[in-house]
């Protein structure tokens, strides 16, 4: 075996190691908790649930159409929902002009506790659908609160954010998308 070939042989493990490091460092930048939703690009699931504030009123997927919506899955027992609440209040304020709406899906919660949370911290939602038994959450593929779906005027799901929405997420990801969807007639 010639000397240069021998050097080459020694370099093979190093090259393999470099490839491995490449894969692993890519792995560090991704969050395994964020599972991509198969619902992106599809119509929102049909649903019919009582509204949280008015139990006699029924809300359906039709209530989302005609306007860009942020559908926020939340619950009073969920600390991250509490954490994102302030940001949602500000986002809802920006939609007051009617350009978009924030809708709640109150998930696996108790009505009294949910209402209490809104009373204490304010209500960012145009309405919240009340889903204590995860009937509709299941169709939305919800696996943890909070989750936020962005739905266009035609009721097509365009994006799913997993975890709390904060100022940074809103400015960098959600807001540009909402603007883009608003611009489409």
């Amino acid at each position, binding site marked *: *075996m010639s000397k240069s070939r021998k050097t080459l042989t020694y370099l093979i493990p190093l090259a393999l190691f470099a490839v491995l490091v490449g894969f692993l460092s890519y792995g560090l930048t991704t969050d*395994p*908790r964020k*599972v*991509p*939703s*198969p*619902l992106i690009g599809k119509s929102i699931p049909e649903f019919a649930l009582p509204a949280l504030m008015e139990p006699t009123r029924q809300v359906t997927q039709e209530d989302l159409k005609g306007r860009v919506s942020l559908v926020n899955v939340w619950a009073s027992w969920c600390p991250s929902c509490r954490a994102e609440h302030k940001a949602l209040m500000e986002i809802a304020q920006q939609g007051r002009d009617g350009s978009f709406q924030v809708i709640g899906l109150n998930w*696996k919660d108790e009505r009294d506790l949910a209402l209490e949370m809104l009373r204490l911290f304010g209500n960012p939602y145009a309405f919240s659908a009340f889903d204590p*038994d*995860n009937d509709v959450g*299941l*169709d*939305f*593929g919800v*696996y*943890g609160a909070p989750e936020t779906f962005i739905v266009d005027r035609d009721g097509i799901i365009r994006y799913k954010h997993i975890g709390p929405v904060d100022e940074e997420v809103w400015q960098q990801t959600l807001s540009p998308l909402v603007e883009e969807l608003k611009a489409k007639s």
Partner: protein
Amino acid sequence: MALHRPHRWLALLVGLVVSTATAAFTLEEYTFDDPAREAAFRELIGQTRCLVCQNESLAASQAGLAQDLRDEIYRLMQEGRSREEVVEFLVERYGDFVLYEPPLKLSTLPLWIGPLLLAVVGVIVLRRALLNKQRDPEENLSPEEEARLKRLLARTRDPQDSE
């Protein structure tokens, strides 16, 4: 220190017994008239992932979501839906990640053929290395070492012979 050890083992043992007991308990509520259907149900919840605690199957997880999904799968199977239909139902909502065994498609191809490919490459490299050795056994020996090797080999072939 040494005195504490048996206690720790006992605590571990109790913990294990109690945890398996609760895990088994949660599944007893699912009863089927048809044993084949029950077997299919148990197999399916063992092969689907709880998305909250991602290293646990739906059968093993105590998370609220896993409970909801077990109930839903039970309901669907009681309605007479096939395994394929239930899997489709889950994948439509939660994506392929819900399955422990990913379906074979373009994006999962590396997962399926990657290990095979590595094994094939490994066998080729090993074969070449072995053949090289056979063709040119001890290339790095100096003449003195070679002479010594021959002497030693001759001795092992005929043990009676003394050096």
